[in-house]
């Protein structure tokens, strides 16, 4: 379980996050929803220790962030963070070099699934292909959690479907997934739980099926209700 308790962050006196509290369970898909600038990516970065927090705590299965966190939580940032000159095969070897949780077979399977060319250089990939390769790097780790920042941003329709397929497939399996997006439609039926953020504050967090059955509202309905009023 990824657990954030009253996490706050300031950036030169401006509060970016304020008392953010939510959990993302293993075996569930949790989605951070919010408008641009609501602090979605920042939350993911705080979980990965990529930006400091100024209050509250973040625990992963009860442990504070340490170097082992990165073996248990794989992070898929919103861009492909691999030097442009690197070949994809080199990038895979680089990952294998550093991550003891790297699953080579799964990496190969994913490369086939997304139909990626090992000899291509990272800098020459199209946006959609780069996003797919980015998923390969994150999902080929035998991690307990996968964190994805805007996996659909700027991706064409065909590739979006291909990426969406991943969530319900064995490639994600029983891991916990935490993702951010501002395009709810892609994930509406995929997510277990939604956490709505507005200006760095958790406006509401809910189980999607529960809202549908108890309030007969769609995720989008709740979002509109919460964020636009």
């Amino acid at each position: 379980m990824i657990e954030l308790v009253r996490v706050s962050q300031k950036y030169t006196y401006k509060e970016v996050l304020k008392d953010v509290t939510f959990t993302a369970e293993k075996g569930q898909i949790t989605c951070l929803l919010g408008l641009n600038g609501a602090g979605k990516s920042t939350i993911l970065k705080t979980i990965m220790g990529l930006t400091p927090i100024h209050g509250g705590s973040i625990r992963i299965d009860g442990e504070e962030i340490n170097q082992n966190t990165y073996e248990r939580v794989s992070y898929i940032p919103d861009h492909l963070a691999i030097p442009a000159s690197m070949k994809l095969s080199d990038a895979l070897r680089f990952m294998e070099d550093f991550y003891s949780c790297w699953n080579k077979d799964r990496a190969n399977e994913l490369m086939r699934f997304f139909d990626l060319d090992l000899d291509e250089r990272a800098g020459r990939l199209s946006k959609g292909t780069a996003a797919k390769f980015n998923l390969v790097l994150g999902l080929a780790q035998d991690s307990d959690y996968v964190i994805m920042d805007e996996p659909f941003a700027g991706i064409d329709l065909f590739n979006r479907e291909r990426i969406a397929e991943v969530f319900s497939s064995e490639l994600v399996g029983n891991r916990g997934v935490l993702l951010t997006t501002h395009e709810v439609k892609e994930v509406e039926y995929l997510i277990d739980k939604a956490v709505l953020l507005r200006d760095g504050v958790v406006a509401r967090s809910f189980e999607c099926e529960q809202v549908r059955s108890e309030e007969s509202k769609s995720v989008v309905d709740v979002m509109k209700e919460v964020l636009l009023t």
Partner: protein
Amino acid sequence: MNRYLKLVHLEVHRFRYALFSLMFLTAAIQITGLVHTTQVRVKGWREAARLGEHSTRNFSFADVIGDLQFLFAIPILISIVVLGLYVFLIWYRDWIGRDKFAYRLFTLPTVRRNVYMAKATAIFVFVFAMVSFQLLMLLLERQLFNWMVPSEYRMSSLFAEAVASNLVFVRFLLPLDGIQFVVYYGIGILAVFVLFTAVLLERSYRLPGIVYAILYVAVCGAAIGGAVYLNLYNYFYPREITAIRFCIYLMVMGFTLTLGFRLVSKKITV
């Protein structure tokens, strides 16, 4: 192989073409200069021999290196400037650019100080590789000199003499005294750490961080400079002054590394 060494390799690998270019530049400029100067010398001696004049003294490889002070200094200065800039760029290149490699680098499953130390080690490898390359070049250049100059005009010289005849070598790059080498490069290593920590201050606190970084560099610079020019011979024995200097360096080093490690693992923002 542990992750620190892998990270060192990664950093070396990323800079390899620049490093090879610097080496190539050094070789090209120095060999060109050496060949030209040697040719001029040989020609002069031949002319003198033809006119029946006897020159007072033959010339040695060290003489030619001594003639080439400025030319030899150019590639060295260029290398120093490039490596000096890269002390900063080795960090900033991970933030700028399309790949923003910092996202990957800082989520690798290893303690962050390994990232810091690996970057520092890579810089040291580049510096020492350039110095070593210079030594190799001198060997090669001496061979070249021996081929070019007929033995009747040639005077033999020690390798160290050739090094000593170029001020850039003997004063900065390759002091003949081993202890001096250790002290010079030790201070250089310390300076790299101070600059690294300054970069991390900026990366952690951004705009106000620049002010902290400048102050930090000023304070450390004053401490290191003060230690170098420490003039307390009125009271202390030379070895005690050496010990005091050493303590100051260790303190600056300890503080810089502690702060640097803390910033890189807790405060930095990608």
